[in-house]
């Protein structure tokens, strides 16, 4: 079984600054996907960024980037130039990968980090 741990229940940052959210996970799998999802007050979960474990290069999506350390089983999210609209709960999640790169859709989530961006 997999576990995902987010050790920061709450974080805050000033607008335009950079913030890093932490995530660690535990698994015996070699191949998997990692995700960061954002949940604003509307409750709508939105995919922020995805990382394939076999890729050494860290994923980036505009202002969002990850620091993926496979050996340490660490997957942190960096948000640059924070905006008020980034205020949300952020979840780190794990998905097992089968041979051929196909996925098994069950996502295992961390407990979440509430991020508040202050003007």
């Amino acid at each position, binding site marked *: 079984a997999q576990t995902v741990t987010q050790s920061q229940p709450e974080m805050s940052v000033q607008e335009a600054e950079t913030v890093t959210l932490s995530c660690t996970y535990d698994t015996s799998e070699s191949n998997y996907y990692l995700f960061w999802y954002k949940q604003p007050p*509307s409750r709508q*979960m939105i*995919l922020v960024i995805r990382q394939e474990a076999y890729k050494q290069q860290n994923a980036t999506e505009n202002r969002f980037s990850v620091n993926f350390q496979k050996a340490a089983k660490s997957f942190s999210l960096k948000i640059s130039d924070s905006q008020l609209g980034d205020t949300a709960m952020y979840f780190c999640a794990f998905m097992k990968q089968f041979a051929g790169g*196909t*996925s098994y859709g*069950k996502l295992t989530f961390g407990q979440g980090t509430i991020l508040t961006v202050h003007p």
Partner: protein
Amino acid sequence: GAGVSQSPSNKVTEKGKDVELRCDPISGHTALYWYRQSLGQGLEFLIYFQGNSAPDKSGLPSDRFSAERTGGSVSTLTIQRTQQEDSAVYLCASSPGGGSLNTEAFFGQGTRLTVV
């Protein structure tokens, strides 16, 4: 519709009553999941449907919980004899699945269930 649709948005029920929560996935998505999110908590996996395969029910917390998916599309999560600890937001998600390399799960806005 363009996204995952869940109904109702909010449901208040009396303890002991049965409730049904509905999920309309994105058209063409073969994978469908239900998660439960208790207040301020992470998402707890409940059940996973993939095409015509037997569903993965390993996350259902008790035999009061059941789910079905008709015609490979709409899904209903049923909670019998509701208890106060069942109060939570129930989230549904779908993804292309079926061996697709597209791993993104698209979520609905959830049903907030309150048991009084």
